[in-house]
């Protein structure tokens, strides 16, 4: 039985419950699209996080990297740079943060939780410094249309959603069908075994943290697209949503487990709860309680299913 069947059933169940509460309008295409748009930012960052968590690590700095990325994008646009280059610049800055994470983890032999807890503050500070603690206004470009509903073309789905789908397929391919992906599972499952088998662990960790940060950078570009400004205070606590998506999706914090489909479904569950609650007129605090319960139930169910049958 595949590890992500459970979370897909969970998604279906949550969607059905809100469908019953709210009625058929909950499933109208426009509403589904709204949910997809809501979920992409968490989802893109969670794709990178899935790889990190599979390798037995964690990255707490993604929320700060998202903020840094919005700032860098806005600054580069204001300098008159081409939007595509501005986005690439933001991605590069983000990837650099990830490389720093990776270097600290592999060279100083400090656990990822502590290293990224440190860089979470460090990157947040850098973003604020870079933006001089202000929001950075930027000229409107096509970047701001990434999450806008396409009236025609794109099959009525925003470009950002398509981008997320393509990336999800790519990451699933990387995890399942490349040496890099299999090495991540090996490192996460038993790092000593991976070392015995000649896996170059430090190199793989450097790669995975850089890659994860680049995904966070892309999430930042999408965030910028929504806000239309560079905001160094955005994305506080976002890393927890991202980690929750991976965990609801069947990822294990002890490593060696996690799927892209599960992560995407995990992110979707959180979006459905968010939108469902607000459309049913439930206040924000109810939504937080429900999400919290879902996280614990998801992990408990996973434990229970995997309990030794002996």
């Amino acid at each position: 039985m595949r590890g992500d069947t459970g979370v897909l059933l969970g998604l279906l169940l949550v969607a059905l419950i809100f469908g019953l509460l709210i009625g058929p309008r909950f499933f109208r295409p426009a509403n589904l699209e709204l949910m997809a748009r809501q979920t992409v930012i968490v989802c893109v960052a969670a794709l990178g996080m899935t790889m990190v968590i599979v390798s037995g690590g964690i990255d707490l700095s993604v929320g700060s990297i998202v903020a840094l990325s919005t700032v860098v994008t806005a600054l580069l646009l204001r300098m008159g740079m081409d939007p595509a280059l501005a986005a690439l610049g933001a991605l590069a800055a983000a990837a650099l943060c990830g490389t720093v994470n990776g270097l600290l983890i592999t060279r100083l032999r400090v656990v990822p939780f502590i290293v990224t807890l440190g860089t979470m503050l460090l990157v947040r500070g850098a973003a604020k410094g870079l933006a001089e603690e202000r929001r950075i206004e930027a000229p409107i470009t096509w970047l701001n249309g990434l999450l806008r509903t396409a009236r025609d073309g794109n099959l009525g789905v925003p470009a950002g959603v398509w981008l997320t789908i393509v990336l999800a397929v790519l990451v699933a391919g990387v995890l399942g069908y490349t040496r890099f992906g299999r090495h991540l599972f090996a490192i996460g499952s038993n790092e000593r075994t991976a070392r015995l088998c000649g896996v170059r662990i430090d190199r793989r960790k450097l790669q995975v943290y850089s890659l994860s940060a680049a995904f966070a950078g892309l999430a930042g570009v999408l965030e910028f697209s929504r806000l239309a400004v560079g905001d160094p205070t955005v994305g506080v606590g976002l890393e927890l949503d991202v980690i929750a998506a991976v965990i609801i999706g069947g990822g294990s914090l002890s490593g060696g487990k996690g799927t892209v489909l599960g992560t995407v479904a995990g992110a979707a569950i959180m979006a459905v709860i968010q939108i469902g609650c607000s459309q049913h007129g439930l206040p924000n605090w109810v939504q937080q309680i429900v999400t919290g319960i879902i996280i614990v139930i998801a992990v408990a169910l996973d434990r229970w299913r995997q309990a030794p049958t002996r």
Partner: protein
Amino acid sequence: MTSGTPRLEMRGVRKAFGATIALDGVDFSVAPGEVCALVGQNGAGKSTLMAVLSGVVRPDSGSMMLEGQPYAPREPIDARAAGVAMIHQELSLAPHLTVMENIALGLEPVRRGLLQWHEMRDTARRALAQLGHEEIVPDAIVADLSPASQQLVEVARALASGSRVLVLDEPTSSLSHGDVQRLFELLERLKSQGMAIVYISHFIEEVQAVSDRVVVLRDGRNVGAGRTRDMPADAIVQLMVGGEVEALYPRSPREPGDVLLELVDLEPGAATLSLRRGEIVGIAGLLGAGRSRLLRTIFGLESVRSGRIRVGVYSGPASPAARWDQGVGMLSENRAGEGLASGLSIADNLTMSRLEELGPGFLVFPSRQASAASRWVDRFAIRSSGPAQAVGELSGGNQQKVALARLLHHDVDLLVLDEPTRGIDVGSKAQIYAVLDALASGHAHEPPQASGTGGEPAIVADRVAVGRPRAVLMVSSYLPELLGLCDRVAVMCRGRLGPVRLASEWTEHSLLMEASGAKAG
């Protein structure tokens, strides 16, 4: 010793897990002042029987009596309260706590909500004195003790909680020779104090040395029992495997070829050694003599301090990744902690060191990974539901075959093996011996037939080893295996590797003398 009422009696114990019948009406008993050995291959039902005894598993049917009273533990704590103590292969101590805290664990003396440290210390001291090991300090931190002393702490815990039945499951697997002797003396002492002891071991020699009675299980049934002195070793082994056992240590003609490994004054290890293709060289020694460290240094898992090392045409130290590229593979002594990623599949574990040819470029096709793995699953007769099964679900012997098959999948020339047969059943051992012999000789021979062991197909060594002879360097604590399988053997003592001599020039006695440093040079 069978006179009087048994302290513990199990009758007709039956337990099925799904379609698999683990225990099919097993009888077992042990009397006060008796050591009863429980032997059988992996999967014979020993562990399940002991799990029933200790309340971890509830039997489908059958009855148990403890001192004539019905005994049906629902939880492990019930067994402990009734006086049944288990001492497992992996010790269950809290390493950061002191000896006395460990001994009192779960039964801490408390008065008005406060811990009574003096009482705790006295209890610990009394229990250790009863074992004749006053030298262990109750205030010492358990992690600082040797494995043998840690085991004593666990026995002391059993005594302190008033145990009347003591079950030891493979108690010697992490002990050196001297510590094994001391353990045996301890068991004698406990016996004279009236303890009923169940002794589980793969080592027939140990069973003969320590037990009064032997009970043999095979495929979940009693297949034989009797007084130890009436049962010679080969009779016990025969009962265990259920058929004729041919030569356990096969020896095909081997022809030494080019030198694959050359060590000159390599530190750590003070090792000077040259190993040729077509040879099996063994390293004996006590636990902690530095044997594993030497192998790990050769393989690049630990750094070379000084001296020369040459592998094939490559001189100097190298990383594990580079060693694999040079045609060297290593098997770790620590199967669960290092050798295998127990959460991953057989296929992932088997191909981890060499994913290169399982797809173009940097791709790995799971289908090719599975088919490569299932070839080895067939060749090694690895009992599993298929290459996708998680390695952690396999028995010890089958896990070890996966770990060894990794080296063959990688097609290495030099196999560096650390305790290749530790903690596995006789059948799997015989298969691994046959494979190693075939690898060293480069040609096939008839595999040992172990018929009647539940239809396990005997390994066909010629399907495993093809073409060229390989070289094997192995560390083992099991002396008969070293003498039976190796061409040449060296002894490591206190971090120094002694001279390598022909296996025929050694005896178990001389190996032990040298290993314990009783004889110079």
